[in-house]
């Protein structure tokens, strides 16, 4: 994959001489489309969300990941928090949480994700 960053930096210098405006921001975007046929499941609504709140390596800095149209099987069905939090033993939830903690991911300030603090479910139906 070609290095778009260096090319962008070089082109910015060339554009500066060509325009009486000034360049204030540049972005390199790598877009991808999902090719296989995937259809949303019946009854899916983006308003039915679950938020996963993570702690990061910096005290006081959190990361929130909001999943739209959360699958019902991932929602806690037992106990006082039934319907209000995600099921901690659901395999898909566990896999996603582990990937976010152990993978490349960080919060928008660059702090590493270290643990799951809580989950919150918001449904409208």
């Amino acid at each position: 994959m070609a290095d778009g960053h260096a090319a962008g930096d070089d082109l910015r210098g060339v554009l500066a001489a060509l325009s009486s405006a000034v360049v204030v921001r540049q972005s390199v975007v790598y877009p991808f489309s999902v090719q296989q046929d995937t259809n949303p499941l019946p009854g899916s609504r983006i308003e039915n969300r679950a938020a996963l709140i993570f702690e990061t390596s910096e005290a006081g800095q959190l990361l929130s990941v909001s999943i739209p149209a959360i699958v019902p099987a991932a929602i806690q069905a037992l106990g006082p928090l039934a319907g209000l939090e995600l099921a901690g033993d659901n395999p898909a939830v566990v896999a996603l949480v582990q990937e976010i903690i152990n993978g490349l991911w960080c919060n928008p300030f660059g702090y590493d994700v270290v643990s799951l603090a809580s989950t919150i479910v918001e449904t409208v139906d």
Partner: protein
Amino acid sequence: MAWRNKPTATLTFVLVDETGSRANLSFDVPYATLASVALAAADALVVLIQGVTKCAVLSYSLTYSKVDDEPATPDVLSRVERKGVFIFLTAAGKKVRYSVPGITDAAVTYTGRIDDDQAAVALFTTAITEVGAVFSDSNGVDLVTLDQAYESYRRSTRKMLPGDRRPD
């Protein structure tokens, strides 16, 4: 002029539900992460996201952004509505168009044509078309030659109108 990158690159997924409504889901990686590494991780993450959502994932994009937090002062009388339009031919014979906002006076002739021999114009067209340049059309086909270049104006939006336009 001080160019600073954001601390992270942002990976944004677009999801769609049964009604056709779309939602975004974003993750961040450290800015130094190579695009190839981040995109490989994104491929793996798509599978995990599909396991917890009833939506279908339509697309995703990875964005690296920089900003100049000490920008130079634009030239007096510079206007983004005044465009320098450059049309390049690809190796497949198709056309790609770029509009440079605020095209400088020195690049434009009295007829409105952009002078391809003018130094800044020549540097720009060379950067786009030279052998080994990374730029291409949206199908990945190389841009090989400049076809046309001219000045063009776009309509001013309300925000572009001068703030002191009312008589005092």
